[in-house]
């Protein structure tokens, strides 16, 4: 009887003890969720960017806590804790997203400012390079006009040279004509004009009128070619003493010189030499041959005034 009464009492006491000793039901998931929640609370981004989500997560956690306090089954606590945990994670993500979006907005401003700076830079560079190009173009223009002027000068010089060549050719042609008139001969020493004996009186050292005409022609040639000089060489035949012949040859050559001086040719352009009976051009056996040997040869120098020695 006693035993029958005692059993329920002990049971009741045991139950009471059990109820007192059980702290609220808790699970590792709920613990983790609480840790997550505190982390979210200490994240300043969450407070500013995801307050609504945080509130909902808090409510979900409250439900889980309430279930734990009411000693609901671990399944139910876990279920509620899971929902709260996901909501807390979502809150963190939303805070991250909003913070990134805010960053995008501020970065976009920075980027726009930099883009503006870049454009300004580019514009400045373009401007300065345009100025440089302008300067270069101006310099090129100056160069071009200088080149043009030089080309013009070169052209002028070429034209001048051509004109001179033509003049020289004309002059040469004229000289040739004049020399042909004087029966000049081209020899290795230069042009040689021979004034024969007939132009002098016999044994006389004076030019007759025909000789004077030849001298006049020669003077004309010399006036037309001021850089040329002449060497007047006198020769005789072998008749008479060689001393006489030497003197006669010198006198005849001197006569030509005198004539040329009278005709206005300056003295320094006329060299004179007598060779006497040397250098005959024919044998002295006949009168005709001797007449050929009695002569004055006038050697015309080149343009430099040089005459090759005999």
């Amino acid at each position, binding site marked *: 009887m006693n035993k029958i009464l005692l059993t329920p009492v002990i049971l009741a006491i045991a139950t009471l003890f059990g109820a007192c000793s059980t702290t609220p039901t808790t699970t590792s998931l709920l613990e983790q969720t609480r840790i997550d929640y505190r982390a979210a609370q200490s994240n300043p981004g969450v407070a500013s960017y995801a307050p609504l989500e945080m509130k909902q997560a808090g409510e979900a956690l409250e439900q889980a806590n309430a279930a734990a306090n009411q000693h609901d089954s671990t399944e139910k606590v876990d279920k509620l804790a899971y929902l709260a945990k996901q909501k807390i994670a979502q809150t963190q993500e939303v805070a991250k997203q909003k913070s990134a979006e805010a*960053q*995008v907005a501020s*970065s976009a401003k920075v980027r726009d400012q*930099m883009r503006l700076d870049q454009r300004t830079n580019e514009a400045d560079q373009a401007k300065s390079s345009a100025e440089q190009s302008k300067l270069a173009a101006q310099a090129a223009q100056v160069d071009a006009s200088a080149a043009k002027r030089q080309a013009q000068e070169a052209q002028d010089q070429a034209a001048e040279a051509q004109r001179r060549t033509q003049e020289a050719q004309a002059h040469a042609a004229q000289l040739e004509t004049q020399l042909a008139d004087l029966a000049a001969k081209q020899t290795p020493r230069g042009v040689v004009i021979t004034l024969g004996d007939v132009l002098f009186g016999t044994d006389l050292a004076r030019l007759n009128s025909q000789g004077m005409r030849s001298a006049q022609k020669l003077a004309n040639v010399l006036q037309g070619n001021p850089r040329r000089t002449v060497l007047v060489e006198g020769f005789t035949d072998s008749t008479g003493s060689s001393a006489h012949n030497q003197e006669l040859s010198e006198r005849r050559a001197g006569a030509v010189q005198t004539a040329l001086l009278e005709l206005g040719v300056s003295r320094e352009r006329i060299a004179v030499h007598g060779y006497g009976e040397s250098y005959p051009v024919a044998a002295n056996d006949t009168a005709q041959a001797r007449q050929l040997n009695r002569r004055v040869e006038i050697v015309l120098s080149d343009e430099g005034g040089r005459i090759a020695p005999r």
Partner: protein
Amino acid sequence: MTRNTSRCLAALWGAALVFTLGCSSMKTPATADVAVSKEAVDNAAGAGAVQYAPVEMNSAREKLALANKAMASKDYKLAVDLSGQAQADAKLAQSKANSAKAQAAADALQDDIRVMRQELDRASK
């Protein structure tokens, strides 16, 4: 006797009504919950959560499938629980995708700025 009979009838009607309401109140929220979860999963997929939050996305889909299965086997309580979890997973997945995209945009902008700063520095040298 007639009075008793009519009282009995009224009580029966009431019981029937309560029963019907109970049944309908058990069934309708579960259907709605599953539908809301499905929408949440679809939205998350549309936001690119498959790429950015594959773990949460898989979890949401699995739980949604289980919820549908529970609906089919008329375990409405389990269906409500599962669809609630699926919805929480899907929303987290979507938030992760959104934050990843926003972060990528921010990073890209930062990159742009870095490149431009280098160009400016070089240009001003």
